[in-house]
């Protein structure tokens, strides 16, 4: 099993959700996150008042999938989140050792 984590632009999250739904992913977790990568913070000016923007708002998407579904999910996220501009985000994949559905106690792929 794989845990696929993606950081995407906030305005792409609906597309990502839809793309994942289209390929049959029926569960995901999203979190509002802030951070920076190559796209750094900067100073903004509003009517003469300056303020510092240290972090860029993004949305983190996490999906747990079976081994053979991972590539499809990665492709779907990549396509849906891509604008071609700076700050489109990242996707990474980690091994999920164990998955447990708390309600039923199911384990492993059954719990996905």
């Amino acid at each position: 099993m794989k845990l696929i984590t993606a950081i995407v632009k906030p305005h792409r999250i609906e597309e990502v959700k839809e793309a994942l739904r289209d390929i049959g992913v029926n569960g995901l977790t999203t979190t509002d996150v802030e951070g920076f990568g190559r796209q750094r913070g900067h100073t903004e000016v509003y009517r003469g008042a300056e303020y510092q923007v240290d972090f860029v708002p993004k949305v983190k998407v996490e999906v747990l999938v079976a081994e053979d579904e991972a590539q499809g999910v990665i492709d779907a996220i990549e396509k849906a989140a891509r604008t071609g501009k700076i700050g489109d985000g990242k996707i990474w994949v980690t091994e999920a050792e164990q998955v447990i559905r708390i309600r039923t106690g199911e384990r492993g792929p059954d719990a996905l």
Partner: protein
Amino acid sequence: MNAGDAPAGAPVPIVRLKDELASLERAYSPGHHGLWSARRRSHLVDTALVDLYRAANPPGERAPRTALVSLGGYGRGALSPRSDIDLLLLHDGADPAGVAVLIERLLYPLWDAGFTVGHAVRTPEDTVQLAAERLDAATAVLDARLLAGDGDLLAAAFEPMLLRMREDPDAFREALAGDARDRRARFGSAAYLLEPELKEGGGGLRDIHAFGWLQTVRGRPLEEDGMLRPAEREQLAAAEEFLTRARSALHLESGRRIDRLFREQQSDIANAMGFRDEPRLMAEDGLMRAVFEHARLVDALTDDVIIGGRRSGPPPDPVELPDAGEALALIAEAAEAERPLSTAELDAVERIVPANEIGWSTTIRDAFLRILRAGRGATQGLHTLDRMGLLVRLIPEWAEVRCRPQRDPYHRYTVDVHLLRAFERMSEALAAPDADDPLAAVAAGHVQERDGMLLGALLHDIGKNGEGGHVVVGDRLAATILARMDVDETTGALARFMVAEHLLVPDTATRRDLGDDDLILDVAARVETPERLGALYLLAKADALATGPAAWTPWRQALIRELVTKVQRVFDRGEMGVEVAERLADAIDEVRELLRHEPAAAVERFILRMPRSYFLSTPPAQIARHYATIAPDLGRQDVRTSTREGGRSGTYELVVVAADRPGLLSWIAGALSLAGLSILTAQVFTTEDGVAADLFEVEGAFEAAVGEERWREFRSLLRTAIDGRVSLEHRMAEKRRHYPERGGTPVTVAVDNEASDFFTVIEIGAPDRIGLLYDITRTLSDMELDVHLAKVATYTDRVIDSFYVRDPLGRKLEDPPLIATVESALRARLTVVPEPSAG
């Protein structure tokens, strides 16, 4: 408390008690166990306990001197279905072993039968001592009631305690106030939280009981000291009855002693209590509204009397108010002075509250606006209006949002409490802007129309009345309300705008691409002025802060501020504003009109895709002509062109549409030049979906009329360039060699990063010559710069061009060395004509 079967071998009183409790529960539906039922339950337990006590003290056996006393709610003679049976066994301390035997005989049968018993065994002296140390022990004894045994023992505990408390009744009130504050902090409010704690929460049963304790300690009815008005006594009684019913239903439905009304139980409890779905209010929302209405009155009275320490004394002289206008003026005066109304004033206001809607007069409007402007006292003033029933008579639409719960993950408060809190935040933001928020401070500083801002915040969610589509409904209701109030036109206009557009900033910021320059222009066009933008920012912030702790996160703040800042800069640069927005709207309307015979959906898609700058810079008639070339879908390798004669004789209008790619503009420019066409003006637009629509005004370089063969040559050259089959660079150099350079005016290159939030603007001035635009655009594409927008104009011998460019990742050119490289590359290319490479 536990109805049901008694265990085998249980004593007769227990068997009977179980039986009678079960039949009491059967007698009513779970929602109809109010105070009467609680008293009956208490009475049944009394009987059983008296019997048990007697049996535990058999005649002839030497018994210790004791008294069996009920405490707390049970002491007051009211037991909810699953409440603890709180008992105190008082003894004289002479026979600890005898007391131990007695307590076992009393309690074991209760425990065995499954009752939850809270018990204490103390001497009167210990009881007095404990009551002096702990408020809960003291209030429990204030409710104490003798069930059986020696009454003198209870008197020995009760009377010294009461005497000591009566020495300083206000200190006792202060202790109750401290407890009320602690409970609010711990359990939250029952007056607006979606999962209220009916017993300990603010406005809950414990608050009601505090009035009873205060009265016991003061020794006479609170009314006699002017601390409670008769109408308020009735409100407390009604609230106690209702909340007792709700709590009993909760115990019976859940089968447990829980006092928090959780979401998942609300539907069952509502049904049990007789609430039914209404067209705009679900049964469970009706239940919650009733809970909130009662708890809110209790909460307000607790604030006034217990926490606020309402002044006691002989009943004050009555105050007379002639009408609602005077009543509002009095409330306004109190709000400005930040003082509560006296009981005499509340009585007077209560007397003038009419049965129906209050008509707005100048006096009423002025007083109402005075309340809104009262700063820190304003919210108190609005609460007074609400509590006295004036708010719903002034604004009948308020009745629909009053105490209406909101069932979503973000809102913690009822709609009306949310509105009042948002109003309060707005009032604070205008009076003393948040120093940590430069945007709020600057926005507040620019506000001219304060009444409009306050009214906008107060009414922004007035449309949440159960109809659905709260923004549209709210816009309609706000228009009616503001017209009724007859406020100034500018006040009403701003307030109404805020109601109608209160989601524009937060929704756009969190859901749309803030890197899209046309999106920013569209928002600016809707907002129109910096003041209205500031109003929407302050409202977005007040709205979020009034929603719950999760709504104004740094994440949301960052997005909202980015949007507001970008829109403001659009205003600063004059790219959008009232006039431009009108011009844009007019132009688009005209385009729609001209294209009325085309499919409407396709026309709307065309309007949405094309940049705003296109509509602002191109005459509608010309846009309508472009439609057929630009609008249809385009394949990746397609190139579509159209030509027609231009406005001046010998000039031609050329449109080229192709999928945008690096170098495209230079290929077009090169192909034109090689085909013997001179570029007089050019405008380059890129749609958000990556299609370049380039408009040129051209003339023949060598002859006045351009024939079809030149156009064909141009199209063929462009086609082969796009397909990568020919290098225009070589052919351009070859061609240029045959034409002498005219020279003269110097080349200027200026890189400007201030002109746009999205692009770096490069302005170039140069003497006109063959292939100039080709050279410029070729240089830009060599530097991997993407031209998003370009304006090229020729003035006799000189060409002034501006190019809106970005790097391949969509960034502006911020790096000084890179900027310098771009500048020098352009200068070099434009100053020296490159020789064709050898071979």
